[in-house]
């Protein structure tokens, strides 16, 4: 494609955006590599040698794994349901929560999950429990909050792929003697896999970068990377530590997504290359 010279002028705003965003990122990178005594990896060494930092790091990835697994398992049937219904109104219903800010929705969960919240009030009112169950300020709270926020993303990515699966393949497989379970495991699931992988990747990345939900629904003893960085920047003003943590977060995220990308290549290896 050839662009006229005037068309390049349209790229100027993009350039401006890259510059302004890039400067911030560059500053962060610089601060984490350049200490008082010149270029060094001290900030990274500090991160790796600090036990709490490493535990936050591992906990964050465990959470990402757990949340993306739950999201995929919940979103798959949801996507199937939406495609079967053939009704845009239902899809809208799934998307609706995206219109409300994450902070507001997380506070909503506090009302539901709190010691005197909806669930505990109901449980105690019904006499099932005598003391409130801890649903908040721990891992459970964060998982519930994050799953809720990320389900629309996961559902949408699975839905896009699932809805393109040719329905007649199901008939064809049935005529070859395949029952519902085999049709699902050998036809539907493999063909929907790119959507599942996309959903898992998105949710994994979003969870690793989560700040608000872990801050509001998580415990103070067990932070996640996002909220730790937030703390270092805005509470202790420790920019080099925040910077190195951010870089570690980004690199580890890329590393975690890599197997998923390879899996995607593998599951689509026999399909025609998509023409774009």
């Amino acid at each position, binding site marked *: 494609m050839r662009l006229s010279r005037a068309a390049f002028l349209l790229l100027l705003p993009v350039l401006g955006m890259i510059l302004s965003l890039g400067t911030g990122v560059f500053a962060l990178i610089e601060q984490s590599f350049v200490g008082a005594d010149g270029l060094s990896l001290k900030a990274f060494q500090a991160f790796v040698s600090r036990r709490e930092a490493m535990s936050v790091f591992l906990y964050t990835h465990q959470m990402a794994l757990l949340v993306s697994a739950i999201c995929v398992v919940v979103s798959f049937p949801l996507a199937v349901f939406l495609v079967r219904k053939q009704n845009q109104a239902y899809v809208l219903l799934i998307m609706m929560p995206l219109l409300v800010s994450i902070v507001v929705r997380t506070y909503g969960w506090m009302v539901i999950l709190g010691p005197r919240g909806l669930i505990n009030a109901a449980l105690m009112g019904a006499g099932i429990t005598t003391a409130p169950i801890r649903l908040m300020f721990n891992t459970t709270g964060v998982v519930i909050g994050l799953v809720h926020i990320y389900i629309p993303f996961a559902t949408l990515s699975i839905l896009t792929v699932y809805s393109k699966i*040719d329905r*007649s*393949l199901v*008939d*064809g*497989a*049935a*005529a*070859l*003697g*395949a*029952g519902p379970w*085999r049709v699902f495991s*050998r*036809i539907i699931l*493999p*063909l929907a896999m790119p959507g599942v992988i996309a959903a898992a990747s998105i949710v994994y990345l979003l969870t690793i970068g989560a700040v608000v939900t872990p801050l509001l629904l998580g415990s103070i003893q067990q932070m996640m990377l996002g909220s730790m960085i937030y703390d270092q920047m805005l509470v202790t003003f420790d920019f080099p530590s925040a910077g190195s943590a951010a870089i570690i977060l980004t690199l580890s995220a890329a590393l975690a997504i890599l197997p998923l990308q390879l899996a995607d290549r593998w*599951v*689509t290896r*026999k*399909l*025609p290359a998509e023409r774009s």
Partner: protein
Amino acid sequence: MPEVVVHAKAVEKKYRDVAAVRGVDLEVFRGEFLTLLGPSGCGKTTLLRMIVGFEQPTTGRIVIDGRDVTEVPTYRRPIGMVLQNLALFPHMNVQENITFGLLTRGERKSAALQKATQMLSLVGLAGFGHRLIHELSGGQKQRVALARSIVLEPSVLLLDEPLGALDLKLRQQMQGELKRIQRQVGITFIFVTHDQEEALTMSDRIVVMNAGRIEQIGAPQEIYDHPETMFVASFVGDTNVFAGRAIATAGARVSVELPALGQTVEVQGRGITPGMAVNVMIRPEFVALDDQPGAPCSGQVTDRTFVGADIRYSVTVGNQNLEARRPHRPEDRMLAPSATSGVTIDWANGIAFPSAA
């Protein structure tokens, strides 16, 4: 008495208030090549989908191999189907598509692979096992779809216009292939088409359907030579139709007065009473054009089409348009358009049907 493989008993299918199939009774015999023939929307696919189990009949029963399978799900029926769009699994290669059914059934992988190899050579695709589906041509896909169904040796194989998407040349080639494969494996085929020529060339028996009903069942020649309804007569093969009135009947013969020609002729006809309004059909090959004097009437050639083996003429006799066909021989003189010619009609091969209105 041939053995019945599929028996559809008084099968009806209604989609809300639309009756797609009405009161169909059909027996399919073991090893035969049966074709469902009919115009678009006459219910062929619907009937097939009920036999295979994708669709439940509104009323009636489906019996396969003597077992009532009306409530049995597709995957437990001893039946195979080649869908119109083939429905090959795009994430599997040719070999995996063919072994899918065998492995589903619990056969061992080595045995399945061996059968797949045999099947591939049967359908003329030896060595194509590792090809991906999107690397195949239309005709090759057709063969894979056929192979993966046949390898399961179903009691009956349903094919819904499997050749519809192919171009003419390939289509004719696949017709021959299909027939050869069917003879070789001996599996009962129920084949759907709306192409009457395809039906005539391939079938042992043809079921002509119209508006959800069966009009006639019979061997191709029977259907062509002795159509039982006006619909069959005009749908299968070309026909000329004359409106007339029955004057007298004698057994299976009827005397009919044809106002368009100003003649009274004797044709075949059943269930006709004198005085009845009838339509008489006569095939173009029984209309002879010759310039010898003494022909019962004369007409004017309006059009001529040379189709190789045959020459087709359009002739106007009185105010009636007629199609005539005669075999072409190089030494014959062709009639020029607008030429006048004698017209002799072999009325013994005409058939009278009560006219609908």
